[in-house]
Structures are given as structure tokens and as C-alpha cells.
């Protein structure tokens, strides 16, 4: 079974600054995917960024980037130039790579607050 751990229940950052959210995971799988989802108060999970485990290059999406350390089983999210709209709950999630219908395993979440 897979486990995902987010050790920071809450984080805060000043607008325009950079913040990093931590995530570690445990798995015996070699083929898998990792995700960061954002959940604003509306409750809808929104995909922020995705990383395939077989890719060594860290994924980047505009102001969002990851630091994927496969050997250490670490997958942190860096948000640059933080904006007020980034305030939300952030979840790290694991997806096994083989087989259809593979379910997402989520961490406990990190509440990020961007202060003006």
C-alpha cells in the first residue's frame, strides 16, 4: 500500500514571495505518478501539477514547480510570486502507474494562506 505524508498542516506567505510545500511518500512501485491538487473553499479539487516518476526532469507549470527526489521519495511544491488567489488547501497525491482505475492516495493537506 502507498502512503503520502504532508508534515505541514499550515503555511503562510506574503504576497509576491515564494513558498515551498513538502510531501513525502512511500511505495514499492517503480511506475507511478505524483500530483499536487489545490482545494479552495468551493471544495473542488483542481490539478496544479503532475509528475511522472520515470521522468527525471522536474515538472513546471507557470509559477508552480516541483522538486522531485525519487530516491528520497520526496515531492515538494514551490509556488513563486504568490498571489492572494493561491490561498487554499493543497494536497499531494500518488497514483499507481499500472492498471486502469488506479485510485489516488492523498496526503493530509497543507492549508496555505497568502497574506497581502
Amino acid at each position, binding site marked *: 500500500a502507498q502512503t503520502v505524508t504532508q508534515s505541514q498542516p499550515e503555511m503562510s506567505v506574503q504576497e509576491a514571495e515564494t513558498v515551498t510545500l513538502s510531501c513525502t511518500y512511500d511505495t514499492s512501485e517503480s511506475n507511478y505518478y505524483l500530483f499536487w491538487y489545490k482545494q479552495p473553499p*468551493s471544495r*473542488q479539487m483542481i490539478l496544479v501539477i503532475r509528475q511522472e516518476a520515470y521522468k527525471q526532469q522536474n515538472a513546471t507549470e507557470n509559477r508552480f514547480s516541483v522538486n522531485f527526489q525519487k530516491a528520497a521519495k520526496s515531492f515538494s511544491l514551490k509556488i513563486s510570486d504568490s498571489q492572494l488567489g493561491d490561498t487554499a488547501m493543497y494536497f499531494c497525491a500518488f497514483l499507481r*502507474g499500472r492498471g486502469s*482505475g488506479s*485510485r*489516488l492516495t492523498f*496526503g*493530509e493537506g497543507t492549508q496555505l494562506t497568502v497574506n497581502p
Partner: protein
Amino acid sequence: GAGVSQSPRYKVAKRGQDVALRCDPISGHVSLFWYQQALGQGPEFLTYFQNEAQLDKSGLPSDRFFAERPEGSVSTLKIQRTQQEDSAVYLCASSLTGMNTEAFFGQGTRLTVV
């Protein structure tokens, strides 16, 4: 539709009542998932459908929970004889094939059992 739609958005049930939660996935999406999210926690997997077939129901917490997707589109999650511990947000997600393609989530139904 444009996105995954769930109804109702909020449901208050008296303990012991039966409830039915509806999910309308994105048109053409083969895979459909239900997750349960307790307050302050990450979502946890309940069950998975590929078209009308329920291929995995290992996450359903008890036999009071039942899900169906009879025509391979709309799905209903039913909870019988609700208990206080059933209070949570129930999220539905759909994906085009389920083979590692992006899952799109609805806004969830917040169930409160009093």
C-alpha cells in the same frame, strides 16, 4: 457537460435516515470514482466504476454504503441508516479512460448527520 456536477451540494440527514448523492460525470468519461473527505483530512477512496461495472469497492466503509452507475454515466452513492461518522464531503471524479489520465473532480456534497 462542462464539468463534473454533484447534487445536492449540502445535505443534512437525521441519524438513521437513508441518503442518495448524485454525480454527473463529464460526458464520455469512462471512469468514475467516489471519495470521502472527512473534515480537515485528505480524500479517501471509496469505489471505482469503469462504464457501468463497479470494478473496485474496497474503500466502502460498511455494507450501509452502496454505489451504482447503471447506464455508465450518472452515478449514485447511497448511504443507508446514516450515522454521525458518515458526516463528510463526498467527492466524485471522472476521467476519460482511467489509465493514468487526469481525474476531474466535482464540488462535492457535504453531508451532515445530526
